[in-house]
């Protein structure tokens, strides 16, 4: 349309500039709206967690915390007596969030550490070692990516039960501890790109294949390994369905499950929103911090993780 107003292509650019800002402004407005919808709930968690339940009832639309208090956090962390908690609008039953936090850390660390290491070993075998049947086994692993997780959950539960690992942290970690088809696939891609010469030089220096794996391949692939590690950590931290199946008591309860129980405990009428949002924040904060540390790296490699 702009071309209609001008006849020569040399004047086309300035015209385009004059016309553009409307579209650009509209686009930025939409972008701003998206950012707002994305971030506002996070602020609302914080604002609610720092309010009292009585205050929330009296003044639901106040953009600032009503009657600024840390009582919600105290309740979530079990630092309030039962009577005090009930008086504040919470449930009397205690939930030990410190413990669930520790459980979540243990499970996620165990899964991430082991899965990364074993997957890296497998990826090394698939990319840098020559052996019979390699492609067939790798094909099998790839096919494993197609099986939806729901399908293996019930049989895996039966297995974990038969191993007497129900209600243990190991039981939660075990199914994903040894490998994830995707992790193997992802790391193999990077290992394949390491130049042959590097490996040959190390061989000439007298290093064995094992040493090459630890001293050459792993350090060279540290960036993708860290990225994959953070994503694995986030995924295992946020998992709910499997831990819900496997854990019954405090000894193996992780944050996501505890949070759902905290919600179920609060009375249907007069929910303890302040305590609930404080607990939500406790569950979410570690991942936000982790992300803040690695954001740039993760953001720029998401494309790779999704589509080869």
């Amino acid at each position: 349309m702009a071309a209609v107003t001008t006849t020569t292509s040399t004047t086309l650019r300035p015209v385009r500039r004059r016309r553009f800002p409307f579209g650009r402004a509209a686009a930025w407005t939409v972008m701003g709206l998206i950012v707002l919808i994305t971030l506002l709930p996070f602020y609302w968690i914080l604002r609610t967690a720092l309010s009292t339940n009585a205050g929330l009832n009296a003044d639901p639309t106040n953009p600032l915390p009503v009657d600024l208090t840390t009582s919600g956090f105290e309740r979530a962390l079990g630092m309030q007596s039962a009577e005090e908690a009930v008086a504040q609008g919470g449930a009397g039953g205690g939930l030990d969030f410190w413990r669930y936090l520790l459980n979540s850390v243990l499970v996620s660390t165990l899964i991430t550490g082991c899965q990364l290491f074993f997957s890296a070993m497998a990826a090394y075998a698939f990319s840098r070692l020559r052996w019979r049947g390699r492609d067939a086994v790798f094909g099998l692993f790839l096919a494993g990516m197609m099986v939806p997780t729901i399908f293996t959950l019930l049989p895996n539960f039966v297995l974990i039960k038969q191993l007497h690992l129900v209600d243990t942290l190991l039981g939660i970690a075990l199914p994903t501890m040894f490998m994830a088809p995707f992790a193997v696939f992802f790391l193999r891609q990077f290992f394949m790109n390491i130049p042959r010469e590097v490996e040959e030089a190390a061989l000439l220096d007298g290093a064995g294949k094992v040493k090459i794996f630890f001293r050459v391949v792993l350090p060279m692939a540290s960036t993708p390994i860290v990225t994959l590690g953070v994503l694995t950590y986030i995924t295992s931290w946020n998992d709910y369905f499997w831990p819900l199946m496997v854990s019954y008591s405090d000894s193996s309860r992780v944050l996501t499950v505890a949070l759902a129980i905290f919600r179920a405990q609060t009375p249907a009428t007069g929910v303890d929103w302040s305590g609930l949002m404080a607990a939500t924040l406790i569950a979410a904060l570690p991942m936000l911090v982790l992300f803040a540390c690695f954001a740039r790296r993760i953001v720029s490699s998401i494309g790779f993780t999704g589509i080869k």
Partner: protein
Amino acid sequence: MTIASSSPPSRLPAGGAAEARSKPRTRRTEGGERRGDGRLAAVFIAPALLGFLVFLLWPTLRGIYLSFTRFNLLTPAEWVGLDNYVRMVNDPIFWDSLTVTVEYVVINIGVQTVAALAIAVLLQRLTQSAMLRGIVLTPYLMSNVVAGLVWLWILDTQLGIGNEIISALGADRIPFLADETWAIPTIALINVWRHVGYTALLLFAGLQAIPNDMYEAARVDGASEWRMFWRITMPLLRPVLAVVLIMTVIGSFQVFDTVAVTTAGGPANATNVLQYYIYGSAFGRFQFGYASAMSVALLIVLSAITILQYRLTRAGRTDLG
């Protein structure tokens, strides 16, 4: 491990490697090395293979087996043939939950794909800011449980800020999660909030692969942004879009967490999605055989959709280059 470290070429000077390879004696040691590779590979692959066989392949086969049995965890599984499948076909709740799941998937994927595409294009055409991409991704860091609880609070009928705004605008408060017609769309949109950033970044990565000079050339020809979107972006993004669509649909069918914390299947089974029904059958009523049969049904539905989508969108082919 000692086998691998005993590889002899270590004594050779760097330049002599290629020369040495031609000598028959070295060739034999190379053969030995390859056998060494085999044993080393076995050691390296062992943990992952164990995990794969025990927690992926075996459960898959066992799940299919269990679907033909009556099994309550306490007594051994009893073979009942097709009983579970017959029951499933005649179970109105199963069909209801399948319908509800499909309704969820259609809303979730429909809104999410359009929104993700819009965000991805905005990110590409407006700015390449990594910070903006980071912000868009933040909800993805939350668990579904957290996302569910936050929106449960925001949309609360009495005190939620969402309903406060609606009533301030003069409209009636909406019982988003307590109403049969609103519940599924609401849950679908909550999950859009959580996942749209991740999907957008996947599409953004696809957009990055489109050469910028195509846009430059189009602009010189006087094409508008809108026209460029339909004539350049969409055709070239199609293969990536197809893969992302397949991935998100499969993920979407497995909705569970959000339902579990917000509505628990209610009101009146309105949000009793398939996974929730499967979970209830297994752990609420201890019908593991029946639950397995429904899992097999879900697996078949997902496989069919994947194949169909792959065919329809010609995902394998690219128009680039």
